[in-house]
């Protein structure tokens, strides 16, 4: 289901994400730690890729680079047709506002904002489109079955509802790519599967690409493809 209030700028034939030979090296004292070692990955326009690997394997680093939170040490990163490899922190901030959606593992919602305001905050702190943004937030909440919970604070929502609000927020800017970092880690199996089903449905219906970081093999069948990562090396 496409959003009638916004233009879909991503061409389905064009890959949503291109990582070419990407390296990320951290300086730790006197030594270098390679977090991502010449990773190459292409995610199609509406493809869902499960990124699987043990802790410390480089999953989060890869997601952070794909989402413009981190800059690569080497290599090329293109998201929604926009090359961001050499972007400044300020350019990356604008890029994150416009082009990507995030659902994090640790904290996903602002505790003092209602469900609806958590969606609107993306617009309020960014481009401030006003009425169209409010219309889109209401539409997303309705599609996610959260209309009745729009005025509730995160503390008044169940775990599943909070994840749905986070997904709604990730979709607010009509992104080219949504990055899910362990979206089911805090949920029981049944709820985890429900959330993965929702992710699958929402991404496919909107034609949006997604990377789902997980270490739970039970959830990977919701993805179109599985990419394994170990010690910073990607096996797509």
């Amino acid at each position, binding site marked *: 289901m496409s959003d009638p209030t916004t233009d879909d700028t991503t061409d389905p034939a064009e890959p949503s994400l291109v990582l070419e030979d990407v390296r990320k090296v951290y300086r730790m004292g006197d030594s270098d730690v390679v977090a991502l070692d010449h990773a190459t990955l292409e995610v199609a326009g509406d493809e869902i890729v499960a990124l699987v690997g043990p802790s410390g394997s480089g999953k*989060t680093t890869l*997601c*952070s680079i794909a*989402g413009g*939170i*981190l800059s690569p040490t080497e290599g090329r990163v293109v998201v929604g047709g926009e090359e961001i490899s050499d972007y400044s922190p*300020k350019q990356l*901030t*604008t*890029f*994150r*506002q*416009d082009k990507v*959606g*995030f659902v*994090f*593992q*640790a*904290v*996903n*919602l*602002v*505790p*003092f*904002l209602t469900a609806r*305001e958590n969606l*609107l*905050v*993306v617009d*309020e*702190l*960014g481009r401030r489109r006003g009425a169209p943004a409010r219309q889109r937030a209401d539409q997303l909440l309705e599609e996610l079955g959260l209309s009745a919970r729009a005025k509730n*604070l995160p503390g008044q929502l169940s775990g599943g509802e909070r994840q749905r609000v986070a997904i709604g*927020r990730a979709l607010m*800017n009509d992104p080219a790519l949504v990055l899910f*970092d362990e979206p089911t880690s805090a949920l029981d199996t049944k709820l985890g599967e429900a959330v993965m089903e929702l992710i699958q449905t929402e991404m496919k219906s909107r034609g949006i690409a997604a990377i789902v970081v997980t270490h739970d093999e039970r959830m990977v069948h919701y993805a179109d493809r599985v990419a394994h990562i170990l010690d910073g090396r990607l096996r797509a």
Partner: protein
Amino acid sequence: MFLALREMRRTKARFGLVVAAVALLVFLIFIQLTLQNGLLTAFVGAIRNQSAPVLVYSVDGRRNLQGSVITPPLEAAITAVPEVGRAGRIGEGTFTATVDGDLADVALVGYEAEGLGSPTALTAGRFPERDGEVVANEADADLGLGLGDTVALEPGGLELTVVGQAEDINLQVTPTLFTTYDTYVAAVRSVNPDARDPLPNAIALTPAEGVTPDQLSAAVNAADPEADALPRAAAADETPGVAQVRQSFQVIFLLYALVVPLVTGLFFLIITFQKANALTLLRAVGAPARRLVAALLVQVVIVMAAGIALGTALYAPLSVQRVGSIPLRFETRAVVVWTVVLMLLGVLSSLFSARRVLRIDPVEATTGAGVQV
């Protein structure tokens, strides 16, 4: 505004407490400012609000009107200075008087001519024209020193009638009456019939044309080493005790100037840490750091403005009361100045929190590490 106002709306108790803390501090600052000004006015108002541009004490008097005695040679030396325009004697003494049926201390200031030690302006009535007429401090009307009231000096029973009122003309925190020099001399004699004519306590001067009060003071001091001439404001400010009172209050105000930003600064630092995860999340989803800092500053301004408004509202009714013999008044200028100072201090104190916000690394959203120190 979106983020700032919604956070404040959802955490009313927390922000209400800091507003209350700021309001209490503002109230204490304003009330102590009023006390300081009231105390100093009651202490030296008679000097500050008398009409002579220059007062000359004897050096031995140590700039204390009551302790200064102008001998005839010194008086002659002073009046002979070419820069002097007009000169007149001032006498001052503290008397016991029956006021409204009770015995009370009153200070009596005698001046030789209007414009040479008389009150600068009257708020009601007229200047004394006949013996036994006085001008009283307006705020002392309810003590039995209103227009038309009569007091009797004890012993002797010399009656003085209030014919005029002026603002802030008390001396040494004592109800003060301004009168003619002759009435002053008569008052001294009435309580001690054996006394000789009292020597004046000071000489009031006006400068000759083209001479400033500072130049006149310098000329008089150069003419006789026993003379201690001071322009009016300096004579008030350098009265023994004034500087010490002012200094003591300044220390208190300095402490407040430290405590207020400390309270607001710590408050905003604590809530910045408490909402670190939310701020990190917002940075990660594309909120520019400057927008988050702006939200913080909006909250600081709202908290400070609300605290100052509430503190002023508490202060206003108390500022028109009287503390013992010290009348208080609403200090508009001080309120405006301190409002600006406190707003600036509040904003400055939040810069520490702003720095923390600017240091948030959006990558922490992926690890949940939040704000780093």
